[in-house]
């Protein structure tokens, strides 16, 4: 079996495993099957990346040549994202066991089946080379996500899920409208075919509107600033494990789809000219960075605080994109990867606290530095990464982002990036201060350190944060290849 023939199975394995999972009773086997599927998927994605960086891989389903049939078309960009998504699932799942047992005591088969479908959906979006197929898999992952969020024990989880459903569906429908316009103008749905046929017709209002609709639709899923309203509640009330996974992957895939359309399908030398896209994205990115960081500083609930921080981090990525250069895109991809690592680590640490204490409110963190030193140290270290302290992964992505801004002489942006980093210090430091420099109130329950099954995966992620802050060959190499793959269609430097 060649790597091209193996590649689609990183989607198909979780897809099929979800069926098995749905039927399995008890608490152990669904989890074990899920873990096995996620690991298999991650391995396949890891094998795909080097091959895809060399040459674009194409796998035609049903052996119908595209654009008649549907193909998976993989280059460095989507291989990079796929590896991130599958890898995150494989790394976070060992942590999930305990946490899920506590927060979702019943019907775990269904839970894990939904999880696998969400994973498969995200991977399907990433690998697919067909616009409509992207929509279908987007809906698979979205619907599964709504279900997963609603598993949260608080009744507000239901509300969060419903609002996410409404906004998510509107976003997906916008995407569908955009795809519809493109189809009307070109008669094809294959992304590659589209990119070849669009130049003939692209100076029409229909195509311009299609671009706008796709960007808004994906902006909704991406939680780009004015469209971010669903995210804080969804992240706050979902079960801890779902938050960990979503924070690491869902918005990243939406960003990827947006980039794929803007850069590959429409070619950047057109899409950035016809709409004031660069300016708009830059303003939205900066606004997201600021608003997210600002609101995060005042959140009493740590999960919500991290959720707003995610809005801010999405801002960084959008900002990187808005610079429309290889370095800027590299920065966006790097941050996409690194942010997944750090945010998942943070949410895992918070999830571990929830496991022990039962709440994520900041008062509950008091004095935990002494009773749960390993958990809170993990939080602090991952927090350093989000601040962007050297030797952490977060530093690397900020370095590239600042460099990209400097390349274009955008001094103000540099200042803004740095100011929001300082804001990150403040919101992370609140937790650290509560954990180490406040005493536990007498009426608060005493807690001990969390079990190792939760600690070890958290620390693996923390270690990865540092590993990718020191050895950046994989991340920088992958991100650069991804950025170049996306920009190769255009005429930009």
């Amino acid at each position, binding site marked *: 079996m060649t790597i091209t023939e193996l590649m689609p199975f990183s989607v198909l394995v979780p897809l099929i495993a979800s069926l098995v999972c749905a039927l399995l009773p008890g608490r152990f086997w669904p989890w074990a099957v899920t873990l096995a599927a996620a690991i298999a998927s991650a391995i396949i994605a890891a094998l795909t990346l080097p091959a895809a960086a060399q040459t674009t891989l194409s796998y035609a389903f049903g052996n119908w040549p595209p654009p008649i049939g549907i193909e998976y078309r993989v280059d460095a960009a989507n291989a990079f994202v796929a590896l991130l998504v599958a890898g995150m699932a494989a790394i976070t799942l060992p942590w999930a066991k305990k946490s899920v047992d506590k927060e979702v005591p019943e019907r775990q088969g269904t839970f894990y089946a939904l999880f696998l479908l969400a994973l498969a959906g995200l991977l399907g979006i990433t690998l697919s080379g067909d616009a*409509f197929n992207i929509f279908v898999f987007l809906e698979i992952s979205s619907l599964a996500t709504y279900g997963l969020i609603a598993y949260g024990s608080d009744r507000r989880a239901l509300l969060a899920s419903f609002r996410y459903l409404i906004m998510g569906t509107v976003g997906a429908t916008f995407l569908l*409208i955009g795809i519809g316009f493109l189809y*009307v103008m070109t008669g094809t749905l294959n992304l590659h075919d589209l990119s070849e046929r669009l130049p003939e017709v692209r100076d029409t209002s229909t195509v311009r509107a299609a671009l706008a609709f796709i960007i808004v639709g994906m902006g909704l899923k991406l939680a780009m600033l004015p469209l971010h309203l669903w995210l804080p509640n969804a992240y706050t009330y979902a079960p801890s494990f779902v938050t960990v996974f979503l924070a690491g992957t869902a918005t990243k895939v939406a960003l990827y789809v947006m980039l794929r359309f803007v850069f590959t399908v429409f070619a950047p030398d057109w899409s950035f000219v016809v709409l004031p896209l660069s300016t708009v994205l830059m303003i939205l990115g900066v606004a997201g960075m600021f608003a997210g960081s600002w609101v995060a500083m005042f959140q009493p609930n740590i999960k919500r605080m991290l959720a707003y921080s995610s809005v801010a981090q999405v801002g960084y990525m959008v900002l990187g994109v808005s610079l429309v250069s290889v370095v800027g895109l590299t920065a966006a991809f790097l941050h996409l990867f690194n942010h997944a690592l750090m945010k998942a680590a943070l949410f895992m640490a918070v999830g571990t606290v929830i496991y022990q204490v039962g709440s994520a409110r900041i008062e509950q963190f008091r004095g935990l530095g002494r009773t749960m030193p390993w958990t809170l140290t993990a939080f602090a270290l991952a927090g350093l990464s989000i601040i962007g302290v050297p030797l952490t992964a977060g530093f690397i992505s900020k370095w590239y982002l600042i460099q990209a801004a400097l390349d274009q002489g955008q001094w103000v942006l540099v200042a803004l990036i740095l100011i929001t980093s300082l804001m990150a210090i403040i919101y992370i430091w609140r937790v650290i201060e509560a954990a180490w420099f406040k005493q536990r109130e007498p009426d608060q329950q005493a807690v001990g350190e969390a079990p190792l099954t939760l600690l070890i995966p958290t620390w693996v992620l923390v270690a990865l944060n540092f590993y990718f802050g020191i050895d950046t060959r994989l991340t920088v190499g992958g991100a650069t290849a991804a950025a170049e793959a996306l920009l190769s269609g255009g005429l930009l430097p």
Partner: protein
Amino acid sequence: MMTALSFFNYWVVVILMMIGFYCVIARGNMVKKIMGLNLFQTSVFILFISAGKIVGGSTPILREGVEVYSNPLPHVLILTAIVVGIATTAVGLALAVRINEAYGSIEDDYIAEEEDGDGQ
């Protein structure tokens, strides 16, 4: 004349879309929101199907004596999209049921007020 007619067809779709979308954003009742979502989606379906239509063509099933068929591809897409729509509707309604049980209401405004009372 043809032009006017063609635009008319598209514009009906657009107006339907706007109505549905307004219903989604502005209405407080969750069931209404979901109905609005359905309206919105259905209008998109009409847009797609219109794209496949050839005047004088017929349903794309091979028969004797028919020369021009409409394009089957949009039909396939919309079949899938309808399924997606009903799936979304079902999940949304299930959520509405649970919300109704948890809050005693399916009015978004009312629940928002109650949430503030929770002191989050």
